[in-house]
C-alpha cells in the first residue's frame, strides 16, 4: 500500500481522532525507510547518517512511532503470489452490529487473515459488515479457511460470501512521503 503526499502536507489535520504529530525529523526517517531498511550491519546508523542525527535518536524516534502505531511493525512482507498463495479471497460476513467488535477481533487473530475490518452495509443489496482477507494456495484451501471463520463466528454469522480476485487491474507502489 502506498500513498503520495508531499512532505509539507503531512499532516496536522485531525482525522478520526487518531493522527499523531510528526515533526520534520520523523518525516525524514519515514522518507529514508519507506522503501525498506538498509541491508547493512547497522541499518539505523546508516539512516542516522543520511539524516544527520545520531543513531540513538533514530532508534528512540522509531520506537516511539512503533508505540503509537505509526509503525505497525518492522518486518518482511512476503509476495504471496511468489510464495504460491494464489487464491486470495475477500470474505464478507453479516454479523450483528452489537457484536461486531468482539467478533471482528477474534477473526483478526486467525493466522491466515491478513486484513480484518468493519465496513458499512448497503441494504438490501449488500448485507455484509465484516470483511476479512484470506490467502491460500487453492480455492479449495481458501474455502476450508472460510469454514473455520464460520465456525468461529457460530451464531454470530447470519450470512457470508467469498469474492475471489480474478485479475489485478491496477497495483501501484506509492510513497508515503515524496
Amino acid at each position, binding site marked *: *500500500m502506498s500513498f503520495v503526499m508531499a512532505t509539507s502536507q503531512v499532516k496536522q489535520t485531525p*482525522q478520526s481522532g487518531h493522527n499523531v504529530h510528526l515533526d520534520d525529523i520523523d518525516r525524514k526517517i519515514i522518507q529514508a525507510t519507506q522503501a*525498506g531498511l538498509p*541491508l547493512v550491519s547497522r541499518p539505523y546508523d546508516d539512516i542516522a547518517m543520511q539524516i544527520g542525527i545520531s543513531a540513538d535518536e533514530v532508534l528512540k524516534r522509531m520506537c516511539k512511532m512503533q508505540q503509537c502505531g505509526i509503525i*505497525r511493525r518492522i518486518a518482511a512482507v512476503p509476495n504471496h503470489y511468489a510464495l504460491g498463495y494464489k487464491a486470495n479471497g*475477500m470474505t464478507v460476513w453479516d454479523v450483528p452490529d452489537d457484536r461486531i467488535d468482539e467478533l471482528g477481533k477474534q477473526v483478526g487473530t486467525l493466522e491466515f487473515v491478513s486484513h480484518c475490518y468493519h*465496513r458499512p452495509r448497503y441494504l438490501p443489496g449488500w448485507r455484509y459488515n465484516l*470483511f476479512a482477507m484470506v490467502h491460500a494456495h487453492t480455492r479449495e484451501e481458501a474455502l476450508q479457511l472460510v469454514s473455520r471463520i464460520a465456525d468461529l463466528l457460530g451464531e454470530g454469522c447470519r450470512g457470508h460470501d467469498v469474492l475471489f*480476485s480474478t485479475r489485478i487491474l491496477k497495483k501501484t507502489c506509492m510513497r508515503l512521503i515524496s
Partner: protein
Amino acid sequence: MMDELDRKIINVLQSGFPLSKEPYAEVAAQLEITEVELITRLQGLLENKTLSRFGPMYDAQKMGGSFSLVALQVPEEDFDAVADVVNSYSEVAHNYQRDHKFNMWYVIAAEAPGQIAEVNREIEQRTGLKVFNFPKLAEYYVGLQLPV
C-alpha cells in the same frame, strides 16, 4: 528456489525485527547463522521478489491519509472501459476484478476525506454506474504473516 533456511528467515522476519544497534546480528544468532549470511539471503529474497519489501510498515492513515475501499457492479461488456476510467485516477492505488455481482473493487488513497468523495463522484458521472463506498469503520487486524 527457496530452501529450508530461506523459509526460516522469511518466517522469522515476518513476525518482526528489532530496533537495536545490530539487529541483523541478533536475528542471525537466533537462526544460528552469520550476520553476513542473513543479509545476503535477505538481499536475494528481495531481488527475486519472494519478498515484496523489508522494513517498517507505516500506517498511512495515522499519518493523515484517507483511504477507502470502493465497489462497482460493472456490466461485462463495459468492464475494460470502466477499468480504464477508474485506473486513470492517481488516487486509485489498487483495483481488482472479483467474481461477484460487485465485480470491481478499488482502493482510493487521498490526502483529504473530501478527495475520495470527489473521485467517486467523477467516476459515477463518467461511467454512469453507482459507486458503493466502503470506508473502514473499525480495523481489527492488518498484517500479512504467511507460513512458508
